[in-house]
């Protein structure tokens, strides 16, 4: 049963880690714009445009 003495603090620690991550998300404004983020992922502005497509534009 001694294993419990190790396992429970471990489980709690992991939970606290998650809580800490949640607080960090809040502070850094991850929840400020829930709609925009869904669209932002589709933007390909960081990818180089292939030459053939460049002509098409």
């Amino acid at each position, binding site marked *: *049963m001694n294993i*419990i003495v190790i396992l*429970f603090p471990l*489980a*709690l620690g992991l*939970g*606290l880690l*998650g*809580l800490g991550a*949640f*607080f960090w998300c*809040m502070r850094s404004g991850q*929840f*400020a*714009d*829930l*709609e*925009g983020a869904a*669209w*932002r992922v*589709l*933007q390909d*502005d960081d990818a180089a445009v292939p030459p053939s497509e460049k002509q098409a534009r």
Partner: protein
Amino acid sequence: MAAQDLSVFVRHRDGGIASMELAVDGIRCAGCMQAIESGLGREPAILGARVNLALKRVSVEWREALLRPEAVVDKLGALGFKAYPFVAERQEDDAVAEERSLMRRLGVAGFASMNIMLLSVAVWAGNSGDIDPTTRDFFHWLSALIALPTAAYAGRPFFESALRALKAGAVNMDVPITIGVVLALVMSVAETWTHGRHAYFDGVVMLLFFLLIGRYLDQLMRRRTRDLAGNLAALKAETATKLADDGNWTITPIAAIAPGDRVLVRPGERVSVDGIVEAGRSELDQSLVTGETAPAAIGEGERVHAGTLNLTGALTIRVEAAGQGTLLDEIDRLMSQAVGSRSRYVRLSDRAARLYAPMVHTLSAVTFLGWLAWGLAWPEALMIAVTVLIITCPCALGLAIPAVQVVAASALFKRKIMLKEGDALERLAEADIAVFDKTGTLTLPEPDILNPEALAPERRAEIGALAAASTHPLAQALARALGNTSPRTDVREERGQGLSAGKGDDEQRLGSLVFCDAEAEAVSVKTLHPGASLIAYRHGAYRTVLALGQSLRPDARATIDALRAAGLEIAILSGDRAEAVAPIAAELGIAHVQAGLLPADKLNLLDSMAANGRKVLMIGDGLNDAPALAGAHVSLSPVSATHLAQAAADIVFLGDSLAPVAAALGIARKARGLMLQNLWFAVLYNAVAVPIAIAGFATPLVAAVAMSGSSLVVTLNALRARGRKAFWEAEA
């Protein structure tokens, strides 16, 4: 053209960096977002631009030395987006802080309830098997270690609200919650101390978790409406032409105008400040302020109010602090009188709490005494009594109403209706008489052509080009109605007469009846449209007379019919003359009409209706309607309304059409139906769970299952209406 000055909106930071928040019209999709961000990003002086798609705002940062704030707005304009600078209000910051603290508490409660459940499940399993009592105690102590600080932190909003209510001598839902939470914690610690089998730490923390979700939803909805209302205020972009210290005229946002400043109002502009005329003479259209449509003459030393339209001459106005005007003073006084009656309304959830709290507390006291009389030892009797309290804790009740409100508010929002108060839905659903203002509410705020048959299609363009050349409000309205914005350049304007262009037989004239020699043609038009302003046109021998006046909002008729079908009585209370109101009332078939009313009269009439037990729905837009809007049981206002009217209304709708009024009523009734369903479900749940608790069979496992089950059911019941158009539009 005077220069724009937006410096009041800029926030300065270290290192010469300036930032500004802008509300942007027309951000709809990811494409717009990318266009704005990359478009502004190409400008070297701009350090960063970030779009918030949910709020339809952009925040921009730039190097102060290289760019004026006006250039940022121009830049966005060049990209095809109209942007309006924005000052965040203090009140808004408080709401954001409140929301964040609720979210943090929610996070802590969620974390704690999951971890305690981990321990509790082991105890429940062990209790039916052969758990070692030492291990069980260890688990209980661990749970207590997590639950006690969590309850102290996450439960604070409820404890504080309960204390406030008790101090005021009232009972709200938070009183039974607080008593339940505190007793359950104390009892659980005592149980753990005496090596007992049952502890309710999991139930307490889970209860707080569910209740916080309800509280958070409530707050979220309120903040979202406030944000959008803030955008609307910015989109109105009210500016004034101010005389700067260096003697130049600059266009300045209203926020930067101080009492004592001098402001120029040209003919055709709307007055945006309250003040005294210093120089100039003109006529004012005060329909937005008083409802009266006939123009009033104004001269030096007289008082003007924001919202009036300057018709004929330029005015220089010395600004006075808002609220000092005699009319505004009067309206302010009426407003404070009116708001009192609104606050007497008791929300559905508080009404439920009033019934619920005494019942539950009596029940658990009776349980305690009953078991004592039955011969049980007092600690066991007390424990059963406390389980009754825990199991009846209004977990589902706390979620029942906010969940529906959020779902209904988003359904309203999709139809361009904005809810400002959560409980407005409940009040709107109860309304049994709809009182309309006329000017600007039943009718459009801008005048329109009432006799299009008098206008030959081939003449439209030439009349439009002539009308567009003038700054006179009637001519401008005519040009807008004809869809013409490119004026002729060779137009001569004769003051107080009209416009003319061309020579001899080809001369064209637009203006007064005398000026165009068209009195004969005017007779029949005058009898057909008695309230309208007549404007004549002559081209050689051709003459016609157009009647310009207020036309009904689109869907006005259908909306009135829909309201009637929903069982509401319809009435018009107007500040305008009886002759102007009568044709509108006749057209809509409304018999209950009163005209020529002062703001105080409107409020008194509403009060007497309320005294007769009527629940009044008031729809109005003018400054003169503001007290009535604040005093009515529930009120709506179009987005074109004056500031004060919008602030007093519970619900604001966008667009020209009147249809949102009927839509809002339909949705409110549906939402109230859902709320009542949820409340009845909570009653049903208690009817099943309470006897089990009284009998002493309610273990922590039963409590946990019952609580989470009932919360889930009410939430799902609310969500079943989410995103379903058919649900809201089906017949109530």
